[in-house]
């Protein structure tokens, strides 16, 4: 029992990342009808927003500290981050410590800008072209983004720490009455899960309960009729693209402490997220979220030793296996809408 709870918990954070990326992919596909292979790169850029902010915060100058002496008896020179000198020692240190969550504030404008530029500059011209061509052009774009990041940040993963307060682990078992130290779960992963739920909830509320969201949903069902009613649906879809980019970006920011960002992390996630989208059903937002969590949890169950003993290697292929079975038995995926990409 405790092992099962532990695996469910372990699956949640990975599942959250899949769900967030898949949500963005589905938003783009459902509105613009574009298959965006560069979405993983957006996730990666988000993670590098966290890296950038942490580096910027770490910028420091040298200062002579009269209260301290080095081993020769001379006054010690210490590195003082600019942030600390501007805001005072305590607040400055807190800002540096919390740079990853703060990077969300940096990521939002950056992702909005990238999203707008991408949509207006490139994707716009591909509405009417085949899915294969959309895949190809966004794939090329993903390579470009990846290489730009690699040029500035190098090829090695860059460790990015979570705030001090979240570095420990939470003893989940003790809470549920199991013996202590059986089910322990890092705080930051829990934060990530809650954050993902929050973002997903916000997107759904936005689509469900605002006029803007209502128009977008109407456009997803029948674009032409909405345009005929005199609504500039393309502009709204562009905004949705930017929102999808922001969702991927903030998902990346918060994931940075879990997985040290490297330039190819986006591609690794993209392949899995596409599988997630297809399993959930192209164009279905609840499907994408559901499939994200289900696959994340299935993956962590498959990596249990007990399961691996029965079917060796299952942990490596479970997601793809599930995808193949789903695609062959349920042409629309788990929750796909009727008539959307069924062939």
């Amino acid at each position, binding site marked *: 029992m405790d092992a099962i709870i532990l695996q469910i918990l372990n699956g949640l954070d990975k599942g959250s990342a899949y769900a967030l990326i898949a949500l963005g992919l589905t938003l783009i596909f459902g509105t613009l009808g574009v298959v965006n292979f560069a979405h993983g790169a957006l996730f990666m850029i988000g993670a590098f927003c966290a890296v950038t902010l942490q580096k910027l915060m770490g910028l420091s100058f040298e200062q002579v500290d009269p209260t301290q002496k080095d081993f020769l008896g001379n006054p010690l020179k210490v590195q003082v981050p600019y942030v600390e000198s501007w805001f005072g020692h305590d607040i400055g240190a807190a800002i540096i410590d919390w740079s990853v969550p703060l990077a969300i504030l940096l990521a939002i404008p950056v992702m909005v800008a990238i999203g707008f530029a991408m949509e207006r500059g490139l994707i716009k011209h591909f509405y009417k072209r*085949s*899915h294969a061509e959309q895949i*190809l052009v966004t794939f090329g774009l993903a390579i470009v983004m990846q*290489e730009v990041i690699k040029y500035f940040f190098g090829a090695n993963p860059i460790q990015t720490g979570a705030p001090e307060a979240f570095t420990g682990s939470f003893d989940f078992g003790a809470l549920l009455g199991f013996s202590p130290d059986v089910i322990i779960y890092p705080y930051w992963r829990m934060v990530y899960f809650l954050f993902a739920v929050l973002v997903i909830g916000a997107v759904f509320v936005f689509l469900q309960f605002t006029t803007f969201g209502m128009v977008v949903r109407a456009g997803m069902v029948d674009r032409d009729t909405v345009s005929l009613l005199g609504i500039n649906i393309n502009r709204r879809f562009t905004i949705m693209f930017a929102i999808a980019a922001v969702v991927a970006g903030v998902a990346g920011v918060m994931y940075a402490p879990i997985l040290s960002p490297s330039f190819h992390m986006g*591609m690794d996630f993209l392949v899995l997220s*596409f599988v997630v989208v297809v399993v959930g059903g192209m164009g279905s937002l609840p499907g994408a979220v559901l499939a994200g969590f289900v696959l994340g949890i299935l993956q962590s169950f498959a990596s249990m030793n007990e399961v691996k003993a029965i079917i060796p290697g299952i942990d490596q*292929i479970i997601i*793809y296996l599930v995808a193949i079975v789903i695609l062959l038995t349920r042409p629309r995926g788990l929750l796909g809408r009727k008539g959307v990409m069924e*062939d």
Partner: protein
Amino acid sequence: MTRLSRQDSLFLLLVVFLTLATPILLQPFPEGSSLAQFNAGYPDLMQRFAIYGIFAMGFNILFGLTGYLSFGHAAFLGVGSYSVVWMYKLLGFNVVPGLILAVITSGIFALLIGYISLRRSGIYFSILTLAFAQMSYNLAYSVFTPLTNGETGLQVYGKDPQYLMGPNSPNSPHFFGLAMIDSVKLHLAGWEFTFNIGYYFTAVIAIIAFYIALRIFRSPFGLMLRAIKTNRTRLDYSGVNTRPYMLTAFVISGMYAGLAGGLLAAMDPLAGAERMQWTASGEVVLMTILGGAGTLMGPILGAGFIKYFENIFSKINESVLHDWFGWLPHGVQDFVVAVINPFVGEGWHLTLGLIFVLVVVFLPGGIMEGFQRIWKAFGRKSVDSSAQTELNPAE
């Protein structure tokens, strides 16, 4: 069997000539000159041109003719490599049994994957092939370690049986005694040409593969595949069962990939799982699109282009750039070098990505469409010849 048309025969002769003369054609700059680093006439690279040409040619039979975008062709490449290395281990270093096995196993593999994947089309087909390839890749790394030697990669060890190994057989891949690594060097007034046995072996196979592809393109079977690309629904309604045609195309293209993988192992007797990773599948997609999908010559050009970039362009570094722009005033020189530097050397992938995006946006037909446009703009001789180019795009 019908004869090739006059135009096609000429085309085939041209390809044969270009392939056989590659060691000379790709060595345009004399040894020791500052441009000598652009020479691509060394055996390793030339073999890669031919091998990836075969790979892209095979991919093109599927994608170019039927429009089904497979993101899992690297799996067949890997299977081919593993087959050949296993034959080295069991029988000896002769490449022939290995290559035959590579084509057969990859064909069987393609039959299985294709049978399942072709139940769906469009993006679902892409995802299914991708899923199968990633499964093969992950399994090659983990559970199939006895077959694939996991992360180390499969290679020949001294304790392997090698039953057909005679006392005088070469101790490296060979074709009935002709070692692949042997080559003849010819010095000619400053130029150095290398005629390598491995290259010529690969080249002959590539020519045969090209001939087969040409026949497929011109056959009723090829016509049927094009019809599937144009409108599959209509074919279904007119009572044609398209699936056997699709499956045949998929298997043929898988066999091409297996052959290419086998030849990679013939060049260098190693096989690693990373050949099966989806990035390798992405690479062949890039090659085919860049050259021009659906044309005979395009994928080969695309493969050559990318491999040339990978090997030559990536060698340019900052000091080479400073050499080139040495004639500029100092400040301007630094500026120009700083601007160009991110795009060469390590950053050649960036250039590749940019070129690829531009090609997809402006030249959906790839390099071949570019040639065709230039041809139309300048070389229009008579109405008749332009009409012919319309009918047979890009040849």
